[in-house]
């Protein structure tokens, strides 16, 4: 588990959350991803990014990058439009209730693409816990326990996967968000390293 897929959300024609001062989620998360890449590589991990510039791959294209590899960790980065500034929330996918007409797996043992995350929910939750603790230590007011939400990007990833959402684009300028970057990168990298150790030792 030495490969981390970093997903700066949105991009291209989709700026994501947008503040009244013009801060765009897609720009902020790209700079966070670049910082996080450096911190993860310093921990001895390989990193791939779902986008390098201002383009907008689809949810499935981003998932494909993770699902084409084995032993990866997937992290999608977001900035909210609401919430108290300076806080970080880490999400994993809850166990979802599916409509009755959802097709079963075509072959036993194969994971349907649209629910690829379902076999990794416990691992993802563990990863979310480790990251959220790091965030609580660095960003005052952040929760010590992680959150669950049906985040679209997570559902189609067949690997431990979490979403990190920083508050918020509703600030007069980017200064505060930029100041959070190094702490965010260091905390996430440490948590991922810890998760990798636990996982490789056979822990859950």
């Amino acid at each position, binding site marked *: 588990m030495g490969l981390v897929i970093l997903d700066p959300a949105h991009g291209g024609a989709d700026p994501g*959350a947008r503040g009244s001062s013009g801060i765009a989620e897609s720009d902020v998360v790209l700079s966070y991803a670049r910082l996080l890449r450096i911190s993860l590589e310093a921990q001895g991990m390989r990193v791939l990014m779902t986008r390098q510039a201002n383009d907008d791959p689809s949810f499935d294209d981003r998932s494909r990058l993770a699902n084409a590899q084995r032993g990866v960790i997937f992290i999608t980065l977001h900035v909210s439009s609401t*919430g108290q500034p300076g806080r970080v929330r880490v999400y994993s996918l809850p166990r*979802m*209730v599916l409509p009755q007409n959802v097709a079963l797996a075509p072959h036993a043992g194969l994971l349907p693409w649209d629910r690829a995350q379902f076999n990794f929910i416990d691992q993802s939750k563990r990863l979310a816990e480790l990251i959220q603790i790091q965030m609580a230590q660095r960003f005052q007011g952040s*929760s010590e326990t992680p959150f*669950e939400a049906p985040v679209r990007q997570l*559902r189609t990833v067949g690997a431990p996967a979490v979403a990190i959402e920083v508050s918020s684009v509703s600030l007069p300028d980017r200064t505060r968000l930029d100041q959070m970057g190094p702490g965010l990168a260091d905390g996430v990298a440490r948590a991922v390293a810890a998760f990798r150790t636990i996982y490789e030792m056979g822990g859950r």
Partner: protein
Amino acid sequence: MGWRARWRRFERSTKWEAGKALSKGLKTTIAILTAMVVLGLITLPGLREAVQRLRNTPRTEEQARREVMQEPISTPTDVQAKAQMFWLSTASANLLEPTVISLPLSADPVLRSKQLLIALIARAPAPEKRTLPAEANLLAFYIQPDGTAIADFSDEIASGMPSGILSEQLAVESIAQTLGANGTGIRQLKILVHGQGAETLAGHLDLYGLFPVPSPLGAAAPAPAKATASGKTPAAGGIVRTKPARSAPNNAEPGRQAPH
């Protein structure tokens, strides 16, 4: 008779002929104009009505449906009840809190649900407490026999929504909590946008699955219109938990995981 006298006579005769011809033409013109004015006066009210009708014609089917839905629904079985609505907390915009309002609620679960959701959009006590965009409309609402509700909202539910995992989760939770707390008998919820199964609400929250709806909070909820079959744990203390299938502490933030 000199040439001058002849010229004057000629002038007089031509003027008389011209005058005679002009008066005939004038008479005809005046008659035609009068007929047109009379015709116009007769047809004017009809034309005015036609213009009015065109002005009132709905531009789209959705607009027509919206006009119907914007009005609060009144049914013969309506009873004035204390409805528990879930809007954003005054203390923290990361939480939902229940607010009790007086609302006519139908005995029919579908109509009751529509009344609740229309009020959830239209009667938010303050802009900062709002969870759903003010311009959003409920286009249709159904309840299947297994307790699955399908709520179809207009496009504004997505386009007017503040983008983000937190804000989108709070929006869906406010719908589920409000339906769950007011005896609709609904167990789970599917959200459609303009009749279609959308991928996300506003770029983050997945609309692929069904959202669990908690059962009513005992005595705090109005008398149920229909016996509920849900065995799910209700939210404690009225403050929202965003993981509906689990219980959570009173001041739980949306989606917070139970310790394990």
